[in-house]
């Protein structure tokens, strides 16, 4: 009937389930028990952890063997990502490269770029940031003002990107910038560049978020020279390339598991004979979670079939983010008698992070616009 409303059931294949137990064993050995787990994918980063994960072959697991990948299915990638999130592993370093930079290079990058970057990403040694938003450009991505001018052997980049998670520790950014002045076709004239964040003409300034952490930044480009071979895809094709990242960016389990640790702690606090009100709160939240997860697995199935589920991804992100915001709001009303400090800390961390859930990766308003297009309303 409508585009993007159907999430046909897919069962995870046995090889994906087999991988699950391996991942759990690995996590049991490698997570630091003194750190309170947080299932928000942006809440923790450890280069050491990412390298260990890379050693297992679990970054870029779907990618071709010639670049070091294992050519496994999207179901196996799905299992790895959800296990990492559920355990609250510090996935911040490699998350973006694994989720969308690698697939971007595979689809649009040059052979040289693939050979140079994919093996490093797979080893957990090369981390990427997203370069989309700018100080005056949020949801209206086509209004970006950063520019790259053609010069001998490359491009000269000027401007600024903002809300760039882990730009202070990551190695590169894929930046979307204008390479031609804005014209009547707002989506024309943009290109994607691989920017070395260690370049001396790039400066990174941390921005404290409301929880006091400094994981995102503003990044400034001051006459940054970008060699020709660091253009991703065709100059001028940036918009189409960015859109193609969204199916990957928006459909994964990080869009509904950010508050999962709150549920773990909540379920620890109440027993089977707890009062009906408390049990019903947990029950309602779990019914949502199980359904969202099934929808997300359906999307993994679509990706595996080679489909590019843009509307489905927007829909699941909107539904999942709404749920993530709901979890702490419901749990705080449980009226627990003597909650543990672990429960309180986890809940508070979630409440402080929650506003970002419905902003990052496309605000709920933008997502609803994409869904409305799928309904034929625009």
């Amino acid at each position: 009937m409508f585009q993007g409303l159907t999430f046909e059931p897919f069962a995870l294949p046995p090889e994906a389930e087999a991988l699950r137990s391996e991942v759990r064993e690995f996590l049991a050995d490698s997570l630091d028990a003194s750190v309170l787990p947080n299932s928000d994918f942006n809440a923790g980063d450890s280069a050491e952890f990412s390298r260990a994960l890379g050693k297992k072959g679990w970054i870029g697991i779907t990618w071709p063997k010639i670049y070091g990948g294992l050519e496994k299915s999207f179901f196996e990638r799905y299992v790895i990502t959800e296990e990492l999130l559920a355990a609250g592993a510090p996935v911040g370093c490699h998350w973006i490269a694994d989720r969308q930079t690698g697939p971007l290079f595979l689809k649009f990058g040059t052979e040289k770029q693939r050979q140079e970057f994919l093996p490093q990403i797979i080893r957990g040694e090369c981390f990427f940031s997203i370069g989309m938003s700018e100080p005056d450009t949020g949801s209206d991505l086509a209004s970006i003002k950063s520019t790259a001018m053609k010069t001998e052997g490359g491009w000269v980049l000027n401007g600024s990107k903002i809300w760039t998670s882990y730009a202070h520790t990551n190695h590169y950014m894929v930046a979307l910038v204008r390479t031609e002045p804005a014209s009547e076709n707002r989506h024309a004239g943009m290109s994607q560049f691989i920017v070395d964040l260690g370049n001396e003409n790039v400066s990174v300034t941390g921005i404290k978020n409301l929880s006091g952490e400094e994981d995102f930044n503003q990044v400034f480009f001051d006459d940054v020279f970008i060699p020709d071979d660091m253009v991703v895809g065709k100059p001028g094709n940036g918009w189409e390339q960015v859109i193609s990242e969204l199916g990957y960016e928006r459909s994964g389990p990080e869009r509904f598991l950010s508050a999962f640790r709150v549920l773990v702690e909540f379920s620890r606090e109440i027993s089977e004979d707890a009062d009906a009100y408390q049990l019903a709160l947990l029950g309602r939240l779990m019914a949502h979670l199980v359904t969202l997860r099934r929808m997300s697995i359906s999307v993994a199935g679509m990706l595996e079939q080679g489909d590019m589920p843009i509307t489905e991804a927007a829909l699941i992100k909107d539904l999942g983010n709404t749920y993530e915001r709901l979890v702490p709001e419901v749990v705080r009303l449980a009226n627990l008698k003597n909650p543990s400090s672990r429960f309180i800390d986890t809940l508070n961390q979630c409440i402080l992070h929650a506003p970002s859930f419905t902003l990052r990766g496309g605000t709920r308003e933008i997502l609803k616009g994409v869904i409305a297009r799928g309904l034929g309303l625009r």
Partner: protein
Amino acid sequence: MNEQQRLIKESLDRLLSDLCSKTTIDKAEKGEFPGELWHALADTGLVLAGLPEDLGGAGGDLADSLFVVREAAKFAAPVPLAEHFLAAVLWSGRGETVREGIMTFAEGDFRLSDNDQLSGTAPAVAFGRWSDTVTLIATRNNEDFLCGVPISEFRVEEANNIAGEPRDALSINLVLNKSQYLGGEPIKRKAYLIGAATRVALMAGALESILEMSVVYSTERVQFGKPIAKFQAIQQQLATMAGEVAASLRAAQSLETKFESMTELEVAIGKSRVGEAVGICTDIAHQVHGAMGYTMEHSLNQRTRRLWAWREEYGSEQEWEIAIGQFFSGNASEKLWDQVTFLN
């Protein structure tokens, strides 16, 4: 949707477009049994889709039965498809041939005495007065007995739910003969679970149809010089509704594909999730339709009133959410994620 379901959907759509008009539903709500509609559904075998052929069914997969219930709910078909199916599954599950005529199921409190005296009541039996036989579960010394009794043996007090669907109070006091009951298997809870599963299917179907109606209406209704579909405020509401409908359809499909191995937990998840969607979606559908949708004349209310009725039947969200909460609570806490991933 598999090939079999595509075929079912095609013939069902054709048949219901012809025979299940707004007028048919209006008349049914006034007490007139839509005989032509039922007989057409029966003649094509759709009322026994998914049930084994050697027991009088139409063959196929039991998932198809719930699929038929879901698709027919898009038309608000005022016939006991869900109850007929529930009764048929219970009998065929025991290797019994499915009975002739219209079957309903009485969820109630019935006892079978040592000398086979059946007594008890059921407060709201779906389409009771239009059925030929009533299937019910009676207990004797903690043993369940599946019973099939002609409707003529019951005292019937007619009543309707808020959607104008017959929900009659039935009571009985009758000595059964041995051919009318079957013991030996705990089945009461199973019947309740299947009953709840049919409500999930019904609600998911009706939800999909009110989304479609709302989208179509928003593109036709012009205000401030343009279709209201062009306003972001409307688009955002419909997008929210689309998310709820997509989740509901996915939840309903889970119960369909897992029908043979349906667990308490699976049913609970479906009834809770889809029941919650009903409140959100009916709110938005009526808001988008404006005052026109609030009239009896408009067919929107034939779906929304049913949705409000069905979400109360076989346990409201909270009843099921308590059960889900029990499953996931307590000493199982460190196993929470493991329990989630077990539910493929």
